């Protein structure tokens, strides 16, 4: 890593010393353009060396990005190896067609990516230009004194809101486990005791309260198994007044 006298703010230094590449294709394109090389005839040995040299000076903010660059390095080295191999003699036809050039696919990808960059730049120009025009913000009907939020304008219903939240929770449960967050260390026996204690306080307990505050799938399953065990042992009964209604757990009042 080069060091630079701290004459500027830290951010400025970064901008000066580390050109930011938006991926391996971006870096490759930069190397090719800098050396004014014909993109259809890339000197793969030189370019590979330069690519690897750059890779060593780069700092990666995330591992995925590093992996993407390493993958390209591997591809380059593979192409290099194939280029160095003697060409099979069979290939006598004049149109030693480009498809056989190990660089072919890379060139196609670079050309495609180059256009993406051009389009992105044009979009950026438009973004800059159009961001100079400001729309009116705030309530849609200032004179009618209707609050923006009260307008009957949106097709979102309460149900959509609930669904969004539920989907989120569902997606959260495995993520929380993956992240290695501390999870409740419950045994089925602990949970059974807890349910019985709860029923000593109140005659009935809502099914949902059993699971309130549990953040891992494992804890939910443990609680559920505990409940099943209690039902099997005839310590509790579950009631539901209608299909899909709230399920309520009560003490077993029958014969023991």
């Amino acid at each position, binding site marked *: 890593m080069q060091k630079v006298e701290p004459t500027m703010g830290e951010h400025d230094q970064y901008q000066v010393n580390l050109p930011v590449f938006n991926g391996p294709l971006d870096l490759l394109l930069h190397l090719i353009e800098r050396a004014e090389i014909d993109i259809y005839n890339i000197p793969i040995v030189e370019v590979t060396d330069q690519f690897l040299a750059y890779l060593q000076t780069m700092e990666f903010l995330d591992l995925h990005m590093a992996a993407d660059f390493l993958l390209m390095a591997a591809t380059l080295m593979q192409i290099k190896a194939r280029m160095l191999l003697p060409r099979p003699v069979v290939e006598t036809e004049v149109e030693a067609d480009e498809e056989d050039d190990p660089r072919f696919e890379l060139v196609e990808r670079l050309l495609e990516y180059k256009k993406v960059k051009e389009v992105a730049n044009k979009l950026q120009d438009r973004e800059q230009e159009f961001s100079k025009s400001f*729309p009116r*913000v705030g309530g849609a*009907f200032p*004179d009618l004194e209707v609050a923006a*939020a009260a307008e009957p304008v*949106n097709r979102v219903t309460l149900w959509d809101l609930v669904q969004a*939240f539920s989907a989120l929770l569902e997606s959260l449960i495995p*993520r929380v486990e993956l992240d290695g967050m501390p999870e409740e260390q419950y045994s089925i026996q602990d949970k059974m005791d807890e349910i019985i204690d709860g029923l000593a306080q109140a005659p009935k307990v809502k099914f949902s309260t059993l699971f309130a505050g549990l953040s891992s799938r494992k804890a939910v399953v443990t609680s559920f198994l505990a409940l099943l065990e209690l039902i099997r042992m005839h310590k509790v009964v579950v009631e539901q007044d209608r299909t899909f209604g709230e399920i309520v757990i009560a003490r077993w009042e029958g014969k023991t």
Partner: protein
Amino acid sequence: MNWSQAKAVLEALVFASSEPVSVKELGMIVELNEETVGRLLDELVHEYNDRGRGIQITEVAGGYQFVTKPEHAEYLEKLKKVPRQAPLSQAALETLAIIAYRQPITRAEIETIRGVRVDSSISTLLERGLIEEIGRKEGPGRPILYGSTKGFLKYFGLKDLDELPIVDDWILNQQLPIDLTAD
């Protein structure tokens, strides 16, 4: 900046502001004294008073603001009935759901749950009046705490927050479709 340019700039400023904007603030932005700004605004107000116009500039508490003319109210009512605003994006909806159920909550906490940055959904929701800042969290940086607004309740037709459906129930019933009444 000449007279006509200054007037054009003031017109743009009054138009784009989300709230009435004061002569003082306008003067600071265009670097003109309040008296001059006042005279420029008077001219603008006068121009828009013309009967052939659909909008006008009015002076309300705290400043100047563009509004539509009252005589066109019947058409504006019709516009209101056309669903105008784009529906909330899925991203905004998720952010709103988290705020509604977990309030008060900071932006960082919402980002932890959603796993992405939420700046833009927060500003959408603030702009639509569905959420608001309800305080600051104690601790480093004293981050803003967000909560849902009265507008949120109105929007979803709720009397109060207790009327929000209980989600845990719904999820668990979905996840564990075991018939408990059997056995």
